[in-house]
């Protein structure tokens, strides 16, 4: 049974004419409100994951639940059709169950808060936000167990509940939830902060309605959605070809010795509509790398990407969703059946962006970006410090932004919106850690006319015994280059023990015991290169060498000859480039650094790790 919306005032909103000026004013005011939500959250949250790294997503939706400003897919419709109960003024909902909101959030660490906004007894809008909790209990600190086979192993899963009922905090419920988390004071303050951010949205929306009236507000939101639909329709017609294009990419492994997993997507246009079909994607994993991909979320990803590539002026919202049709096979890696484990979905989530980039760029090679949105590498470290206090760090790292039509990819930067790194001095002050190296890795960015960004190397010296977990990917497959650009470097993890031994750690591992004095080199991936490296201005290559971002050896990939003072030898460069150009094959759009079979065959030699076995997919529940 769907949710029943209780309203004191049943009068429907009137459709009224909104003049374009008022429309723009309302649009601006909503956009400001959405940024204010972020600001309130960052300032009051406690976990470094939210307050320093900004692992959170806000939105404001209209009374029908369509997102008007924000950055995640509209889940409200699905949420409401699955929720069995009343929605009343003063209620605030909380959930962390991906299976109850059609994947609007995709693992139990993300806590989603939904606040229906009432004006004079009528439901007028929604404010919503979700943020990643550092810990939600379960079998490992950080609650992202690589070897989980069911979501129940991944900590507490909160079904859609009212955390505030008619304005009253449900304290028993909150205590029950917090009691299941390892760092309850962080969860409590992060949740408080998310609620405060949603209340900010509520205040601003009510102010806007107060100023313009509910009918104008409601009609304006409709018109904003329509405005976006018109713009996107143009864009789709102009940029999406009718004949199907197909693109594939991979998750290297599942952390349990199997891989790679294939994500395959085809795209074509039928009239004004574009179809994305994931037929051919591998079945769901028995482990936790499954990604419950919400169709609306995927539309948003595509829409945002197209806007950025083709026309950044367009304001993004839900208006165009009916123009996209997303087909994801049941029981696949991207639509696993309950209760499949989901915690380590970050790899597939990142990879989806590479897939979108490849797919949309195939038909528009001059707009094609290289791979680099390949992952968001996680590092976790926990234990008891010298004072016997429990510490627990959850940190997201970054890597090389891909080479792109507009220029080089920045080194060691984030592809996630508004994410930032954690200051190393902060880490050293609050955790038993010393960060001995924090730099980018020379030559790790893919060579190209526009160079891919370099990977990051962070050297953690552990000052207390404890356990670490790592979640990363792109250690076997390469971040691909495009239009003649070379792939970026793959990720690696090296643990140097204080006894002098060292070991290569796998890309995904849990509960690795570390001792005081051990040193971990956490090396992420580089961005792929864009365009023929032989066309890069030799002066830019020289400058990169002078700055230590490209080595003298690495300059050879660009066909640039340097003298002993690192100055460009013009003639030698010309000759070298001619010679190299003859050796180049035509080169496709994509350079993946080799076929999967080749990468697997060279795996042990190149990475020091056992190659993954082909996945076996048994063990899931029956359909339905």
């Amino acid at each position, binding site marked *: 049974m769907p949710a029943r919306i209780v309203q004191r005032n049943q009068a429907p909103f009137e459709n009224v004419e909104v003049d374009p000026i008022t429309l723009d004013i309302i649009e601006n005011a909503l956009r400001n409100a959405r940024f204010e939500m972020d600001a309130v959250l960052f300032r009051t949250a406690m976990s470094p994951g939210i*307050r320093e790294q900004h692992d959170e997503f806000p939105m404001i939706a209209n009374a029908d639940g369509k997102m008007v400003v924000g950055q995640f897919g509209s889940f409200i419709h699905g949420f409401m059709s699955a929720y069995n109960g009343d929605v009343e003024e003063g209620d605030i909902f909380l959930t962390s169950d991906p299976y109850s909101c059609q994947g609007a959030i995709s693992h139990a660490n993300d806590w989603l808060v939904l606040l229906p906004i009432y004006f004079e007894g009528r439901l007028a809008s929604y404010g919503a936000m979700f943020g990643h909790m550092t810990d939600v209990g379960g079998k490992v600190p950080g609650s992202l167990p690589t070897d989980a086979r069911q979501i129940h192993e991944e900590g507490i899963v909160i079904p859609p509940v009212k955390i505030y009922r008619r304005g009253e905090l449900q304290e028993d419920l909150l205590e029950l939830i917090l009691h299941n988390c390892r760092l309850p004071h962080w969860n409590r*303050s992060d949740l408080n902060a998310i609620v405060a951010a949603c209340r900010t949205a509520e205040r601003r929306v009510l102010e806007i309605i107060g100023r313009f009236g509910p009918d104008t507000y409601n009609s304006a939101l409709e018109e904003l959605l329509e405005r976006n639909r018109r713009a996107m329709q143009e864009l789709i017609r102009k940029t999406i070809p009718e004949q199907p294009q197909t693109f594939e990419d991979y998750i290297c492994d599942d952390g349990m010795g199997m891989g790679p997993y294939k994500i395959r997507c085809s795209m074509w246009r039928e009239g004004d509509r574009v179809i994305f079909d994931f037929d051919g994607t591998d079945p769901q994993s028995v482990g936790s790398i499954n990604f419950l991909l919400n169709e609306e979320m995927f539309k948003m990803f595509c829409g945002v990407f197209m806007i950025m590539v083709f026309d950044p002026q367009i304001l993004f919202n839900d208006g165009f969703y009916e123009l996209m049709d997303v087909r994801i096979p049941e029981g696949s890696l991207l639509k696993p059946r309950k209760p499949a484990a989901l915690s380590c979905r970050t790899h597939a989530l990142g990879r989806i962006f590479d897939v979108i980039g490849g797919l949309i760029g195939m038909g528009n090679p001059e707009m094609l970006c290289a791979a680099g949105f390949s992952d968001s590498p996680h590092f976790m470290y926990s234990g008891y410090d010298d004072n016997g206090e429990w510490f627990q760090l959850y940190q997201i790292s970054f890597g090389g932004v891909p080479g*792109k039509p507009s220029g080089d990819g920045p080194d060691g930067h984030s592809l996630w919106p508004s994410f930032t790194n954690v200051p190393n001095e902060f880490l050293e002050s609050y955790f038993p850690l010393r960060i001995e190296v924090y730099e980018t890795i020379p030559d790790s960015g893919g060579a190209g006319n526009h160079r891919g960004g370099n990977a990051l190397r962070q050297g953690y010296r552990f000052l207390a015994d404890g356990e670490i977990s790592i979640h990363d990917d792109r250690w076997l497959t390469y971040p691909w280059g495009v239009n003649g650009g070379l792939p970026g470097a793959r990720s690696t993890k090296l643990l140097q023990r204080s006894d002098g031994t060292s070991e290569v750690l796998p890309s995904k591992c849990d509960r690795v015991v570390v001792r005081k004095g051990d040193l971990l080199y956490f090396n992420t991936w580089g961005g792929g290169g864009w365009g023929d490296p032989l066309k890069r201005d030799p002066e830019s290559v020289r400058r990169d060498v002078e700055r230590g971002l490209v080595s003298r050896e690495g300059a050879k990939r660009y066909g640039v000859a340097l003298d002993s003072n690192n100055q460009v030898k013009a003639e030698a460069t010309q000759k070298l480039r001619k010679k190299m150009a003859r050796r180049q094959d035509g080169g496709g759009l994509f350079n993946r650094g080799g076929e999967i079979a080749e990468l697997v065959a060279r795996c042990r030699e190149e990475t020091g790790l056992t190659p993954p076995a082909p996945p076996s997919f048994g063990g899931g529940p029956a359909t339905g």
Partner: protein
Amino acid sequence: MSFRLGVDVGGTFTDLLLIDEQSGNHWSAKVPSTPSDPSLGVLQGVRRVCELANVEPGQIHHVMHGTTVATNAVLTRSGARVGLVTTRGYRQVLQIARSFVPGGLGGWVIYNKSEPLAPLELTVEADERVGGDGSIVAPLDEARLRDALRGLSDSGVEALTVSLVNAYANGSHEQRIRELAAEELPNVPISLSSEVLPEMQEYERTLTTVANSYVRPVVERYLGNLQAELSQQTRGVTLHILRSDGGLASAETAARYPVNLLMSGPAGGVAGAIWGAKQAGFEDLLTFDMGGTSTDVCLVKDARAQLRRETTVGDLTVRASSVDVRTAGAGGGSIAHVPELTRALRVGPESAGADPGPAAYNRGGEAPTVTDAHVVLGNLPELARLGGDMQLDRAAAERAVQTVADALGLPLMRAAEGIIEIVNENMCGALRLVSVEQGYDPRDFALVAFGGAGPLHANALGRLVHAWPVIVPPGPGVLCAYGDATTRLRNEVSRSFIRRFSETSRDEVANVFEELTAGAAQALDAEGVPRGEQVPSFQMDLRYRGQGLLLTLDVEPGELAEGGLEGVGRRFDELHRQLFTFALDADKEFVNLRAVAESRPSSFFAPSIAEGGADAAEAVLRPQSLFCENREHEALIYDRAKLRAGNRIPGPAIVLEMDSTTLILPGHKGEIDAFGNILINPA
């Protein structure tokens, strides 16, 4: 007799104000600015104002000066070639920055990062290590560092920054490196992160210190020249520079820490607005300074500007205290456009600037700007000369705005009004940032408008945020010079003090404050301010342990002794609740402690203007028709120079003066107070 002089160097004019310290009499002068060497304009202005006042320059004892030299060096990227020394492993601290890519999801597709202020090729690493607790983990390898410094010397470095990991907790290695660098790089100014910003967060500290180095040579040169020339003309004068936080610094300190001057210009405007509004009897203000390309707003409570621990100039944000001025990218020159795909009306951020300028300027500009919309609506009559000699071309403005009207399918006048409404909305957003979002209700504040375009929009903004009265002080340019001349000497000394409440005591905190206070007072002692004239105060940056934010609490010297840490904690809870709707039952933590010493405020008053009755008929120039709220109105144009105290002006009306135009809307009235301010209220 002794005199003080306020000097404000703007983009076009340099304004000066000479005050007789005994009588309060004053004289002002306006001369063209000389951007290539601003000190020339200043010196010319000094001669001019002294002639006017019939005063010997030798009688001037104090010169107080707001400068944009540092700001311009950043904006035009014309600062020094900066070398940087970091801890080994951290050479790329500026290259990696905070890993942040602006622009939302997919923003990376169009993001191209600007080059660091200290280039990587001029960054070297020192073998050394200090721990998070300030302990020495590894000693400094001096021999190796000397080699690296020699390399920098060969590369022609003009300024050097030393920023080592955890130097906020222990600056001894940085100090030692300064000694070595003084030998290897003689005559190169050296900035240490532990002195410029002894606070946690390696990227922000490094960037701030590098910014200091970046502007230091140009500021040193400028202030050195100015001081020398002034001394020659005046037989010894104390030169004070207005800092970003609205306090004054000696020329010597200013030259050493010029990163504190990046907002000197706007701080002067705010100081002037405070001074002007005070004459009218208002101390809680929203200031609103609208120029050609951008608009600055600031909140003033109890005649003090709100400060923040951050300064932003262009795309550079450093950790230096500044008046909390928020900038909206909209001004008189902002261009209106209608994107093809969305058919929305957008104004800015592109600006026609001063060249070619709005279409109405007839200097080759064709794009419709905010100024053009005003001309079309009749708010800027052809009589307005905008600084002297410019004739406005109404037909050109109409042609430009018509393009917007056509794209929107609206009549010309409605489109012009729409442009103004959108701009007002953007500014309203900036006003909200400093008021509502900080927990203040704008209805409790008066709005003070200045800048070339501010008085045109002020009435409408007052109406949008319900801030009354709207105050338009006379002579907006000279206002900044007033601000400069009446500012207090201010010095602050701070240090990181990261302790949970449970780990420290009232006495420990009090002891730190005592030390800091002594340091803060020394600088004022050196300025010759007797201790009896110094006003001390404390600030503490606090948060709940684990939070990222810092809330700054102003603490009276006696407060800690009386209420102890619990009292401070309660006030923190209250402030947190005011800002964010909730307080937490969590451990609280100190982050920074700061002592501030200020001189007592000076008490110069503005001169009164001549009295007149309510009737302002004598100042009427001519009738003017203007379009507003979707219809034509008949209005009168007034000459501000002829207005008398007590005059009342019913809206709609336009008040002209040399460098600005005030618009009073229908349903509102203006009143002239004893000091020549226009106070606008709903009728």
